[in-house]
């Protein structure tokens, strides 16, 4: 998995590419921890090129969303691929996480 970080005002956008699984979820977890340590409380996960997520990846998504919310901000998820969308649906994540069709909409959703 590759992570590309960009910033739009106060929102950090992490574009994820490849597979978010038991082998790669630790890398994303460290990245989010670093962002939080640097004062970030709004993160958009751009999933345009994320082809796979397992429960190890869902765990990082869930803890990230909780962490950002607890810091007074939030997390949003943009442009889910069909595979990632199916896993979100089956996990009930679409109901509890902020999911938008595009990165721009996800940024707007975080206010």
């Amino acid at each position, binding site marked *: 998995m590759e992570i590309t970080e960009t910033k739009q005002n106060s929102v950090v956008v992490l574009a994820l590419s490849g597979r978010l699984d*038991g082998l790669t979820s630790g890398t994303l977890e460290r990245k989010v921890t670093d962002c939080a340590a640097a004062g970030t409380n709004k993160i958009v996960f751009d999933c345009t090129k994320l082809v796979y997520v397992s*429960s190890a990846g869902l765990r990082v998504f869930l803890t990230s969303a909780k962490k950002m*919310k607890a810091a007074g901000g939030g997390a949003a998820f943009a442009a889910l691929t069909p595979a990632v969308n199916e896993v979100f649906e089956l996990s009930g994540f679409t109901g509890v996480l902020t999911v938008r069709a595009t990165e721009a909409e996800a940024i707007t959703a975080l206010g």
Partner: protein
Amino acid sequence: MSAKHQVLTLRNDVTELTRLVEFVDAFCDPLQFSEPDKLALHLSLEEAVTNVILHGYQTPGPHNFTVSLSLDGDERLTAVVTDDAPAYDPLARPAVDLTLPLEQREIGGLGIHLVKKMMDVAKYERREDRNILTLERKIRRTP
């Protein structure tokens, strides 16, 4: 050995997930599995294999276990994970409550929840000092 029946032996090390991914792709691609079927298989086996690697063995040292895949003439895919760790039924976890709000959502059990959702059959047996997890799914091939 027929392409419709393959067995992979794995060590109890999380880096083995790479070999699992390659094994699943090598099985599915020549048989032209659809993307949803491949996703279901990749996800279910990652969860099952990770469980064995991280939680299965109580004694140190490398342990080997197997993953087998087979496709019968009726397009029924069967995946079997067999290990000789102490008895443990991964399917016995309580169901995940999907209705809880973000703050109360727990990640525990979500992997097995996904396995049960994506597979038509998921069953556990303890036989001859082995844990045997059998997963089945009717598949559709891409034309």
